């Protein structure tokens, strides 16, 4: 069953005389207990998408389209209504916990504060008990409760954030570059913990990252975004093995492989288009090796081209084994 369904979401940031299209008719489906990774480079609109779902976009952003979460349209929901579901149904972990936690309050106090958002009359002892339980889940010792954020390492802080987002057993967790700032070994630890927690807590997970490898190891499904548009969605292993969109293919080719030959890497020539200029055709056309005339004038829609795979391209790759 669909837990979150985003339909034709458009987010436009208007500044002095310029209007930037950050998300351009993006559609995405997240089922219950699903894990979806959104991959994209900077400027692809992946974080805007997350912020739109969380209702955290700045006032200057104009939102169109529908974000249906458990049957409720989140787009245009009032702040008060949002407050009812944030933390409880929908929560998030951001890249820098150092800046998302208060530096002048102890961890225990911050957990209690958030607990009281939805349980206003909770007593101190109850808060402490809940906090201890939740810290145990993410493998943190009880002494963390009485520490300040600056006394914790990056990995421990990220664990605190993960603990916080699971406080009320939400049905959807959004992780926005949650492991990007961590070292390799710590990142591995946290990713495994996230996967384990997803199993035990039965939550759906939306992971936003620029690192394809993170998605490859931890998500069932992947959605590739570029310049505000959705390029390709599908099963992770399948998309990585047989990318059908030329952009996905180029992106995968840009990652150095760890095993096998050290074959020459190829980047994608060119750079991101100006998001302020109207693009009647495909956004990737100027950099695409397969672009033809139609690509510059007509916009390819995201359509099913095989079961479980949606691609926005007029001339998709054939996805043969030797192709990837």
């Amino acid at each position, binding site marked *: 069953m669909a837990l979150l369904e985003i339909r034709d979401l458009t987010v436009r940031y208007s500044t002095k005389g310029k209007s930037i299209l950050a998300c351009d008719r993006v559609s995405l489906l997240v089922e219950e207990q699903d894990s979806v990774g959104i991959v994209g*480079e*900077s400027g692809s609109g992946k974080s805007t998408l997350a912020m739109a779902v969380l209702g955290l976009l700045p006032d200057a952003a104009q939102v169109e389209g529908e974000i249906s979460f458990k049957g409720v349209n989140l787009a245009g929901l009032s702040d008060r209504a949002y407050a009812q579901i944030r933390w409880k149904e929908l929560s998030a972990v951001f890249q820098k916990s150092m800046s998302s936690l208060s530096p002048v309050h102890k961890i225990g106090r911050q957990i209690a504060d958030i607990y009281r958002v939805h349980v206003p009359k909770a007593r101190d002892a109850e808060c402490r008990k809940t906090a201890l339980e939740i810290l145990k889940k993410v493998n943190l010792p009880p002494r963390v409760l009485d*520490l300040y954020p600056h*006394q*914790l*390492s*990056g*990995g*421990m802080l990220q664990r605190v954030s993960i603990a916080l987002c699971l406080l009320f057993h939400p049905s959807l967790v959004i992780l926005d570059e949650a492991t990007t700032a961590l*070292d*390799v*070994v*710590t*990142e*591995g*630890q946290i*990713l*495994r913990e996230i996967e384990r927690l997803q199993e035990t807590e039965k939550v759906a997970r939306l992971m936003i990252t*620029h*690192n*394809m*490898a*993170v998605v*490859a*190891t931890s998500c069932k499904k992947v959605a590739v975004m570029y310049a505000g548009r959705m390029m390709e969605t599908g099963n*992770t*292993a399948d998309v*990585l*093995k047989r990318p059908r969109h030329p952009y996905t293919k*180029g*992106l*995968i*080719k*840009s*990652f*150095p*492989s*760890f*095993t096998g030959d*050290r074959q*020459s*890497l*190829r*980047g*994608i*020539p060119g*750079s*991101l288009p100006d998001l302020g200029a109207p693009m009647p055709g495909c956004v990737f056309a100027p950099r695409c090796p397969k672009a033809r005339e139609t690509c510059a004038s007509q916009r390819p829609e995201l359509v099913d081209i095989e079961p479980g795979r949606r691609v926005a391209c007029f001339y998709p790759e054939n996805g043969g084994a030797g192709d990837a």
Partner: protein
Amino acid sequence: MRNGRQKVLEVKNAVKHYRQKMLTLPDGRRLKNQLVKAVDGVSFALFSGEILGVIGESGCGKSTLGRLLVKLEPLTGGDILINGKSIQSVNTKSKAGRLAFRKTVQLIFQNPYESVDPRETVERILMTPLKLHGIGSSEDERRKICVEALETAGLKPAEDFLSRYPCELSGGQLQRIAIMRAMILNPAFVVADEPISMLDVSIRADILNLLKEQTKNKNACMVFISHDIATTRYISDKVAVMYLGRIVEYGNADDVMHRPVHPYTRALISNAASIDPDEKRQPIEIQGEPPSPVGTGPGCFFAPRCFLRTERCEQEYPPMADCGGGHWFSCFNAQPDEGKEQVP
């Protein structure tokens, strides 16, 4: 000499210690007047045309090592020889001495927007080093060298780029210019400190290729500092793995990456996420995070987190041992063949 190649860089037991007046440990204890051993006895040699990748987690001293190599920080102990000459003997008091040294060693930084002057045009950015070092006899000749450099870096048409300012360029384009600014002097030795980690994935490959090409073509050598393991494997001939200020494993890139011996290297590599969905690697889980390089020793620095730890590890630091083909590691208990089955 190695295959007719020249030894350019020789690092002999380089040490850099910082003294910190007050230090708060993760558990809240406060210590006074501590010695932070950022680089604690590193030795290696590098030949012309070679690229050495240095990997390790944050705080392992890899960036400090890079800064020592180009003399941005004075050594606490040991020595660094470039073309057989100690960098300690460089006369930094005289302009000529400084210039001669800077011409042989160059540094490429992580963020190109911070390493070039935002108010200078590309032409000025590239011309200044040429002028300083007296390369090219006239303004026109120097401009020609710049145009060639831009074209080599794939920035065409070069004349268009000359008059632009850094803010008018993308991160990738500007990083190419930063690379060419270093390479235009034909240095003997370059340090690249995380040169691609802030660039977008789709343009990283081209920057890596440019770095590799330039190093090989100019017969220079490079120390490539990164935390990204797959990238380091792609660009490097040799790899050094650092942990708390020391090299724990060193060897040919594919030897270290595919047949890691040291338990830390094995943990590091097995935890690096791969994009190949068929690859089923069993990550080695090690507990905790690297402690700070304070009060380390006398035993192996990695011992507190190590899965092969024995009593001996806590008493003495394991010396470097060769397991063939110039592949060195420092561990008492690791067996060179154990890591093999990790990688298909």
